Every structure is written in C-alpha cells, then in structure tokens.
C-alpha cells in the first residue's frame, strides 16, 4: 500500500488480533494498525476528529464482540457520509449464510471466514495482506 492507509482492526480476541497482525506483517504490509477490542472503543475512534482528519482507512471487523454486534458497527460506518467509502473487511468465525448476506446487504466489501486450521488461516491473512497491498482506498475528506 503506497498511500498511508490506516488499518483499524476491531477484534475482541487478543490472540486473534496478534495472529492477524503477525501474518499481515509477514505479507510485508507495514501500514499502521490500530487495534480495538470493544465495539464502542472502535466507534469512538472512527468518529473522532483525529481519525477523520488522518486520511484513508481500512476496517478489519470481527462480528462477535462483547459489547455489540459487529454488524452494528458496519451499519454505523456505512451510514456515515464520510466513512461509508472506507473498505470494510469482515473477518469472523461465523460462516452462517444469513449472516454473510446481511453483512453484504449492509455494505461490507469483503467477508472472510477465519479458518480454524492455522495454515489456512495464516494463508488467508497473508493473501488478504497481498490484496491490501494492491488495493486503492478512497480518500476520506
């Protein structure tokens, strides 16, 4: 990623967060990653003046959060005039059909199920990293 896109990771499981970060780094992605383990913390950050002023964003979102549903955050983001163009990658354990449909309906850009098998998991995250490296994120104005 040539432009300084900031990655906002919303993930309540610190183990997962660390594994995701490790594997993204292994894919040679060096962008700044801001990690939030609660939905509210993530929302507060996303809607703060600082983040709005700080250029393009990419959101990595887990659906099962302790304080709210990931889909609620997704809905908030996509409802916001300025944030709605920020790409959202849903990265979660759920592979329920209804849930996947709902996320795409709400405007998520990519939906990835975390594979339990670590090799696949690591591969998936690395591929996501490769994907991110060629992806263009819109500028937030």
């Amino acid at each position, binding site marked *: 990623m040539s432009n300084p896109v900031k990655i906002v990771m919303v993930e309540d*499981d610190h*183990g*997962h967060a660390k*594994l995701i970060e*490790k594997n993204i780094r292994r894919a040679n992605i060096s962008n700044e990653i801001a990690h939030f383990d609660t939905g509210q913390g993530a929302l507060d950050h996303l809607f703060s003046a600082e983040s709005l002023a700080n250029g393009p964003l990419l959101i990595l979102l887990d659906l*099962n959060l302790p304080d709210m549903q990931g889909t609620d955050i997704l809905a908030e983001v996509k409802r916001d005039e300025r944030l709605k163009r920020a790409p959202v990658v849903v990265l979660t*354990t*759920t592979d*329920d059909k209804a849930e996947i449909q709902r996320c795409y309906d709400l405007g998520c850009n990519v939906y990835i199920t*975390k*594979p*339990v*098998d*670590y*090799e696949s*998991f*690591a591969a998936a995250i690395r591929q996501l990293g490769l994907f991110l490296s060629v992806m263009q994120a819109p500028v937030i104005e």
Partner: protein
Amino acid sequence: MRTALADLIDRIDRFARQRTLGRSIVLALAIAMAALLVANLSTFILVQRTAQFNERVDAQWQARRSGRLLLLNLKDAETSHRGYLLTGRPDFLLEYRGALTAHEAMLENFRRQIAVDNPGAAEAEEVTRLSREKIAEMNQVLELFRAGRAPDAIAQVRGGQGQALMRELDEALTDVDRRMGSEIAQATAQSEGSAAFTSVVNAIAGLLILILAGIVFLLVRRYLEDLRASQAALDRVNAGLEETVRARTAALTRANEEVQRFAYIVSHDLRSPLVNVMGYTAELEQAGKAIDLQMTKVETVAPDLIESDALTATREDIPEAVGFIRASTEKMDRLINAILKLSREGRRTLTPETLDMTVMVRRIADSVAHQLGQADAEIVVADLPELESDRLSVEQVVGNLIDNAVKYLDPKRPGHIEVRGRDVPGGWVEYEIVDNGRGISDRDHERIFELFRRAGRQDRPGEGLGLAFVRNSVRRLGGEVAVESVLGEGSTFRLKFPKRLILDEAGDPL
C-alpha cells in the same frame, strides 16, 4: 349357564341395593306398570262379569216370555174349547187342536230355558204337570161332549177343576217371574258394586300413575340438570386442558429453540479460542524449529555447551506435544462442526412434497455402486410406497443408512443390502434397510444413535455423527428409527414416517 344366571341375579341385587337415580326411575316405572296392570285386570273382569250378567238377564227374560206365551196359548186352547162346547162348531175344535200341538213345542222350549238350576227344574216340573193336567181335563170334557153327554161335560166345567188348574198355572208362572225378578235385582246390585269397585281401582291406578309420572319427570329433570352441570364442568376442564397443552407446547417449542440457538452459539464461540490454540501451536512449532536449527549450529561449533535434556526437549518433547495438541484441536474442530451441522439441520425449514421413494432410493443406491463393486456386494431396492415429506431430510436419512450399510459390510461374505417398504395402517409408512454386515451388539443398539458414539471395531473413519443426525432428522419429520441387529449376522434399520407430514404454524410436525 348357572354362573351367567347367578351373575345376572347378583347384578340385579347390586342394582337394587344401590340407591341411584336409575334404580328410582326403574322402581317408579315398575310400580306404574303394576298399577296399570291391576286397573286393566279389574276392568277386564268387570267386562266379563257384565257380559255374563247380561246373558243371564237375557236368558231369564226369554224364559219369562216363554212362560207367558205358554200360558196365553193354553188360554187360547181353553177359549176354543169353551167355544166349541157352546156352539159345537168344529172350527173351534180345529183351533183347540192347533193350540195343543203348539203347546208341546212351547213347553219344551220353556223347560229348556228355565231348567238351568235347581229351583228352575222344580218349577219346570210344576208347570209341566199343571199344563198336562189341564190338557187332560179339557180332553176328558171333550170326550164326554162328543159321546153326547153334553150336560155331564158342562157339569164338569162347572165343577171348576179346570179353572183351578189354570189359576195354579198362572200362580206358578208368577212365582217364576218373581223369583227371577229378585234374582236379577240382586245380580244388578252386584254388578253395580263391581263396576263401582272397578272405577275406584281405575281411579287409584290412574292417580298413582300420574304421581309416578310426576316423580319420574322430576327425577329425569334433576338428572338432566346434573348432566348439564357435569357437561359444563367437563367443558371447563377441557378448556383448561387445552390451555395447559398450548402453554406446555409453547414452552417446549421455546426450550427447543433455545437449545438450537445454544448449540449454534456454543459451536461458534468454541471455534474462536480454537483458532488461537491452533495458531499459537503453529507458532510454537515454528519457534521450536528455529531453536532446533540454532541447537544444531551450536552442536557443531561447541558441542560442550549442549545439555542433553535441552536437546531431547527440542527434538522430541516439543514436537510430540505440538503433535498431540494439533490432533486434539483438529478433532475438536470436527466435533464442533458436527454440532453445528446438527443445529443447522434442526433450524432448517421443512417443505413437505410427494416423494417417489423408489426413484430416490435407487439414485442413492447408484451413488454407492462404485464402493459396492469394490466390496463384492449388491444392493436390491424393492418397489417402495410413496411418502409426503421433506425431500432433503429424507434423502439424507436414507443416504446415511445406506452409507452405513455399505461401510460396515462384513468382508468374510458377499455383501447383500436390501431396501424395502410398506404402508402401515394408521397413516404410517415403514422402510427397512437390511444388510448382512458385521452387525451391532445388543448393548450398543441405543448408543449408536447418540452423538459422537460409535460401536464395534473402530476401523472405519467417522465421528459418530451419522446416526445421531438420522435420529434427529427422523424425529423432526415426526417419525421413528429403530434397529434390529445380531452381532456378526447383519442389521435392519427400520424407518417409520407419517404418510403425510403436516406442519404446524411453527414449522414443526403436528
């Protein structure tokens, strides 16, 4: 026969001893019937008596009339006799003879009518005697007159013997009249008495019947009121029951939904830590390899620095531990996926349709043809009855059972699998999947249907999921699954479904 009779008596006895409404009504009706019978009987007797009485009165009147006619006839004869004596004209004599001829028949008639009892016979004799004597006297006078001794004849008439006889006869017949009159009066009085008695009996019986009818009416009305009251009570209880059933059903449905949701959530939430376990195990493995590499390097450069314990730990203990963690987490993942699959199947919407089971099962049989060929086995699918149910569920159930039959064939003999079915009275249809495979021991017949449980030699891959899934699905379709099996001989799995699957509003079988 005797026991039957004794039983009947016993029952009647018990019935009579119990103070019940039925007994009261039967008793009242029996009394009413008896009263009616008595009234009828007395009326009948009265009618009989009246008829007898009328007959008797009639007979007596006939007799009295005959007596009077007899007397009149004799008087006619006497008149003609006197006329002849006075005039000597033979036509008087002709009349006289006619009267005498008639007399015999009249006398006979009179005797027959009157000589029916003792006094009657005596009276008949008396009248006969007097009338004969009178005729003899008249004939004697006639003989004298004809013999030309007219004065003697007149003198005899003047002697008054004939007249006295006539008077006596008259008196005798009057006696007869009187006796009969008094007898009739007596009989009339008697008849009136019995008529009055009958009237009274009838009146009492009528009154009794009216009273009993009233009692029965009251009893029946009370009974009907009781009946209505108990009907109402029953209705209330029924309404309560329906309410209870509805409440329980709702509670059960809720509980079931909760269990489903629970299974779903648990399996998802269990996966999340599993990702970590597996991930960091892989990281550990990588780290171990890095250390191992380092150790090898150190070993070649400075073998003294290497502790043999550290070497064992890096080269054996760590890889072994990682291997076990990995195998267990993989297994756990499979189990979680199994639970997830079951819970998904439990949440799937059922759509009943008519299923041509013969076609469906033959297609399933074709899909295992390859395995069957390898195992030197055959599958026979008979013509199967149709079924109205959810296609996917039935397909999965039958598919699972056929897969199992193929999977657990006994290699010692050529495999034979048969699928057959029949309609069962009461709106059911039954299918059997019969194999001659390795069979299942008695003690495992229930266990095999439990989640993650397997039976027999564990030489085939599997999670112990198939039959749990089968039982779950069959129950959801309102059916049953059962197994009959002898270890070493084969198994028969029996599926029983309702012929038509009817769903309630919640989408569950009724």
